[in-house]
């Protein structure tokens, strides 16, 4: 019996090398950064899928989030990248970990057949579609020489949030959304004795 764990991590290493190589080959040294971020993103996701322990999965997800942040910075969206690190890594992940702490460890939960099968099907599907699409697709993109330099100023974003013809409504709506989410989460997560004793469970209504 081969140690699956070792096989997986070897594969992961191979993937990292491949991604770095790809970055290097297509964009030179700058590509290495891309390769690293891509490794984080995909490697983290794969590990998250792979690991038996929820805690390990949650932590590997941190790699994905961080890799995304790296992508954002590579793409010149520094603010988004920072927000990603702050909110995702700092907030959402903490929240998820909080949930993880509450649930009991269940090491038998992972079914290799399902994971492997899912990966296979999805991998093949994505590969096929990408092959079909990549050959012909033309994204809405300007030629490299016409591209404006990305604005990296946080001020622009701040202005966009409140400019009357830009994002003021979504901004405010996001506030409402957060309030709703907060109220909802608090209401549902809040425990009172009465919640569980006043009415015996008699089926839904």
């Amino acid at each position, binding site marked *: 019996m081969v140690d699956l764990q070792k096989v997986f991590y070897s594969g992961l290493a191979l993937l990292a090398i491949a991604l770095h190589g790809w970055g290097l080959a297509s964009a030179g040294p700058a590509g290495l950064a891309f390769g690293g971020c891509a490794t984080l993103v995909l490697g983290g996701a794969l590990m998250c899928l792979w690991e038996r322990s929820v805690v390990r999965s949650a932590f590997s997800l941190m790699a994905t989030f961080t890799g995304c942040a790296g992508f954002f910075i590579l793409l010149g969206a520094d603010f988004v990248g920072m927000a990603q690190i702050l909110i995702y890594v700092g907030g959402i992940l903490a929240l998820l970990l909080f949930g993880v702490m509450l649930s009991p460890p269940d090491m038998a939960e992972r079914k290799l057949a399902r994971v492997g099968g899912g990966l296979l099907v999805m991998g093949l599907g994505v590969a096929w*579609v990408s092959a*079909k*699409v990549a050959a*012909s*697709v*033309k*994204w*809405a*993109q*300007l030629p490299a020489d016409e591209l404006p330099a990305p604005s990296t100023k946080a001020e622009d974003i701040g202005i966009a949030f409140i400019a*009357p*013809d*830009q*994002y*003021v*409504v*979504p901004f405010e*709506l*996001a506030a*409402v*959304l957060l*309030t*709703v*989410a907060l*109220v*909802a*989460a608090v*209401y*549902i997560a809040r425990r*009172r004795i*009465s*919640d*569980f004793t*006043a*009415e015996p*469970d*008699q*089926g*839904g*209504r």
Partner: protein
Amino acid sequence: MDIYLDGMKAIAPELVLTALALVTLVADLLMRGRNSRFIGYITLAGLAVVGMMLAMRVGAEPQTVFGMVEVDSFGTFFKLFTVASVAVVTVFVLSDRSERKDGIGEYYFLLLGAAIGIFFMVSTNHLLLLMLGLELLSLASYSLAGFHKGERKSAEAAMKYVVFGGLSAGVMLYGISLLYGLTGTLELDVMATQAGNAMPFGLVPQLDHNVIPVAIAMVMVLAGFAYKMSVVPFHFWTPDVYEGAPTPVTTFLAVASKAAGVAALLRFLGALFMTEGVQPVVEWYGDRIGMLLAILAAVTMTLGNLSALRQSSLKRMLAYSSIAHAGYILIGVATLEPDGFSAAMYYMAAYYFMNLGAFGVLLYFESAVGSDRIEDLKGFGWKAPLISITMVAFLVSLTGLPPTVGFYGKYLLFKAGIDHGLSWLVFVAAINSVVSLFYYFSVAKALFLSEPAQRPALSQPLFAALLTGLGLLTIWFGLMPGSIEEFVQRCLLL
């Protein structure tokens, strides 16, 4: 600053609604749950104000404020019905004896929050705002579905809803990102018409060269709408969530939330494929999408009806029936023509009346009989004749028989379908209405065709009056459908 003021004037109903939501929350905090009915009355009053503000706006010149909010009659139409249905749901909550007293502020707050989401969702051509509105609605709905947090069914419903909803939102988001990548814009009208320069911007050049990516993105976006409308194959959550959620919430989900999905879909398709001066290739692609929707419609209505046939729970049966009705509505949508859209909107209006009514009667039965099983209703019609007769009116309307509003709605849908080459779909729908008769009338059968039941009826005058009113409207608008249809026609000017 004028520009802000004008904009805020234009979105005053939304602002009032937001304020109302906060007021309910604060009021509940202040009263510490002592006088929960009072908050309901506040809500009703606030909704009345919002409703009046909206009503005054009907027929006004459409305008775009804050860059992305379309204040037009189309949105007003759905907003009005949303307000109305939230108001009816509020009455349901007030009359629901099983409703707990504490947390009632949150209840109304979430309901109103969902309504705010709907308000923005139905009045924008910008995919960001659409997405935000949809998510606001979703988040509020998730928590409302699980509002009876001590009940397993309610909790399970919320979990299923959040999983399914989260995934659908994610997929839709991904689809939007692809669309953005393909067309370079997030605004639908720009997407549809921008063309001409050598660069692949807008939908037209992409349709010329890259049909497959567009198709993938399109299906992903449509999946989001389909999930909201519970169209096959994104309907799986519907019966479980409807059954598990508190009945007033189910009502809200079945009526307002679904209508919001329809509205967003109509706007999405309308902006993409039906605006002035679209290129032939876009129109051609619209036909493909129409065909896709037609097939989904056929599958949806058939599946909904067949599944409903065997339900023993009235609530679950109504859930499946709402899936079937999504299929009917899609007939009008699939035509991708103004009259098809107006038929869909009319049907939506009809759907408001009859489903609000049917769920209201369900709520009444639940509190009177203590169960939502159809067989437990046996002979109850003789005990509570008024409510039961009203229920028959709703059932007749749901089946689509005259003289009810449901019939006229179906008539318009069929007409639009036949007029735009979807006769086969109309045929399928017709057969489906026959099938639906069977399960709808199993309720009527239980109510009246059995010996009188032993249980006494409940007397709830306000509630009964509301339901009877809805029943009368169902019949009245079936006999005199002109007024709603005119209203729909006026509101359809996108």
